């Protein structure tokens, strides 16, 4: 399967979440935030698979944090959106905005004007 640098739907949401969370962006929080803001319930495996894919594409970077007691002495893995990631998000947004031009939100739903 050809794998370009296209940003998938979940990838986009997750990258935005990482961006929003800033210093607090790590696996568990990302999962919770995604659930709360986007209403997307994903498994912990999916979160990490997606995060690793984002890293692979160069949109995110990660590093090991400090272990805490609540985590049974296990370290968190922190994530950060890379400049390339920010660029990718920006381009997705531009695409969306272009597509939305000429579409108006009315009481009956979006209509083309």
């Amino acid at each position, binding site marked *: 399967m050809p794998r370009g640098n296209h940003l998938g739907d979940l990838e986009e949401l997750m990258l935005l979440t990482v961006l929003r969370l800033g210093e607090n962006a790590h696996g568990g929080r990302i999962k919770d935030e995604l659930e709360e803001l986007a209403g997307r319930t994903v*498994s912990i495996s999916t979160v990490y698979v997606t995060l690793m894919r984002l890293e692979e594409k160069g949109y995110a970077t990660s590093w090991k944090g400090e272990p805490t007691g609540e985590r*049974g002495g296990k370290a968190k893995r922190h994530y950060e959106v890379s400049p390339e990631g920010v660029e990718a998000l920006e381009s997705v947004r531009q695409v969306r905005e272009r597509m939305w031009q000429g579409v108006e939100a009315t009481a009956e739903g979006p209509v083309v004007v």
Partner: protein
Amino acid sequence: MSRSTPPRIAQAILERRLPTEVAEAISGDLTHDYITRVVPTHGRLLADLWYWGQIVTMRVGSLRRAARRLTAIRPSHERNRPDQASRPDADIWSRIPMHPHDLKYAVRRLVRSPGFTIVAVLSLGLGIGANTAMFSIVNAVLLRGLPVSNPSELVEIYTSDGDGNPYVTSSHQDYLDLKASDEGIFSGVIGTRTFVARTERESRDELIFGEMISWDYFEVLGAPMALGRSFVPEEDATPGTHPVVIMGYKEWSTRHDRDPGVLGSTVHLNQVPYTVVGVAHEEFTGTMPVLVSSFYVPLMMTDEIMGFDSGGQLERRSSRSMFLKGRMAPGITATQANEAVKAFSTALAAEFPESNENRIMSALPSGDVSLHPLVDGMLKPVAVMLLGVVGLVLLIACANLASFLLARAEDRRKEIAVRLAIGASRGTLIRQLLLETTLLALLGGAAGLVLANWTIELMMAFQPPLPIPVDFDISLDRTVLWFTLGVSTFAGLAFGLAPALQATNPDIAPTLKDESGGAGKPGRFNLRSTLVVTQVAFSFVLLIGAGLFVRSLQKAQLIDPGFDTGPAAMVWPDTDLSGSMEDGERRAFFLEFEERLLADPGIDRVAMADRLPLGASVQTREFRLPGVPSDSPDGNHDIDDATVSPSYFETMDVPIVRGEGFGAADPNGEPVILVSEAFVETFYRGQDVVGTIIETSGGDPLRIIGVAADTKVRTLGEDPRPYVYKMQGRDRFLGQQFVVKGSGSSAELLATALRVLRDVDPDMAVVEAKTMNEHLSLLLFPPRMAALLLSVFGGLALLLSGIGIYGVVSYAVSKRTRELGIRMSLGASAEDVIRMAIGGGMRLVLVGGVFGVILAGAVTWAISGFLFGIGPTDVVTFVTIPLILSGVALLAAWVPARRASAVNPVQALRAE
């Protein structure tokens, strides 16, 4: 919380399966959720399940692929390097040679053969359950120490009695003096004595068990209160002034719903109101092993608890009924404490020679004493024997499973050989096989725990025939759980190792070539046969033991106790405890009851006595026998006695062999007695003693007017014992037990007697009402229990061995189908084939039987002390048991052998 982390094994499995990139992060996330969310809302058990569920549903494949692609871009992922080293946990677990797929594989194999799994788990469960139940009892009785602070500092302090028994109870006066003579040996000495009292429950009187204690009991023991306070010094200073009580935790939780409002409330013990001041801690059930104390009252309430004037038990130095415990001061050894109490008691003996001569105190470390130094000596061999018995049952169960597994392994030889040939290591295969059996054993252990729990509940409901309710404190505590886990793991390895080793025998080539699979060669003595021989031998030992105890019980039941054991009822009206009856009233009540009983058409004879032979209590009194030398310094003789009505001898059918009975004697005239034949033999060497006058310890004369035939007094096995019968007179009407005889069964007599009692006094409580058989069953209780337990375990062993024999013969037959087919096509008859198949099985039984006889011969000598009326080589037992065993073995072998004769020669030859 001490352990609110996810299951370690699950965590280890998880971390091993995950790619290093994210293993720690994911594990940490799950742990975080586990601790902060799942446990608080769902509890530990569900949380553990949730955690395991997470592992099962984890998309490990996707994670691995993602991680691989990531590292492919950056092969030297510098940030992940240190991770590896900083995961000591994962490191340890990675060294343990277990893979999650091993576990999956084992589970799958067990699920795939449910029949085998169920039989295996059940038989192991029986074995482990028997062991756990038995161990729980031994643990409760012998092993478990007091739940107090620094139990190693405690010593038991005993006083010797006049007869040379060094470990007897002490007197209150001696206790007070010992406490006062502080020489820095003890940081505290406590006194306690047990009591049984009546308390009101749901408008009904019930007997409860409790302790009378010195005020500092809880402080010195270091046992905290669950609620309220313990006693203060003034509550234990003046007799009868402070009716206060501390409640036991069990009483509080079962009878009062753990209501804190119980403090300050009133509890009636023997109709005296007591104020509750505290509740003892949950783990503390009193200082009497196994028994649970419901109430603790100050020693100063002794008279009130005893229900009548206790005759100055607190003041009289010669009244000894207290257990003493001392807590040694820091740096003092038990030897020093022992020397100190010995010196102290020697000084007391010099000061109070009339009461304390030859009364020497000794101190033993509490850790060395379970029930009592002398009782321990008798109980320990019993405990060892019972644990040995259930241990044998478990071994037999293990042998069965090993045998099954060997058969399965034989069938898998080819598969295993192929796997070995294509490069699987032998270690890996053994590991897998052992994992499977250990899993089975742990399942068996779980089943065993359930069975043990049932058994214990059953046993706790099984009251020994004692007049007081016994509240046993036998529970599955942590020690027991560890024991069960240990036994299960042992069982898993024990029955799994041999099959695993044999199945993975690296001798591959012959197996691959050998068409028949190499098993079941006739005449070859393989491992499975050895297991059957062992089983038969062990079963034989157990059955011989059971047989000996059953025979011993039969013999005990045949002993003539010297009185008539025909239908009779015994009723003991509670005139002492249930009211403040004056002596005159009590006498009037007894006489009226007797009269009304005799007026009933179904009742012919009624006797009264303050003690019945072969009852629970032992009662002796000191007599002075002029001209008869005594070992005791005061010249007195301690003799068993009873006070009886004139009709006693006729009612109990105890013949008067010389002189006359009480019939003609004036109850208010000169005090007269009857003595037993053994009394005459022991003290007067058979001379005619009728007319002889002996004295009470106080010097009052007692004239012997007759001699009664001997009866058993304390135990069935005893030699004839000197016995003195005093005549019931005007001043001797304390605590009378009635014996009622007539037409009809014991049960009918009992019903009649109780009905008459209600007519005389509807409110009269009853201490005890029982039939003659129930009365006799008290002494037969230990031999009956021994016979019952051993029969149950022996039967279990026999059943398991039968299954083993069946399995071996059945397997041999299935492997020899081809051979048998050839034989039959060459003209062998069905009978020949059956005989051949059975013969193979019976040969093993014979060998096992020979080993069993040798083993049983050695073991039964050890139990000869418990046997009664028969020797350890009782011929009847040694003839009967082999017959029973052979019968069962024959049946077990015959069933599969019959199948062999049904073999169709043509099909059998075509099968291979």
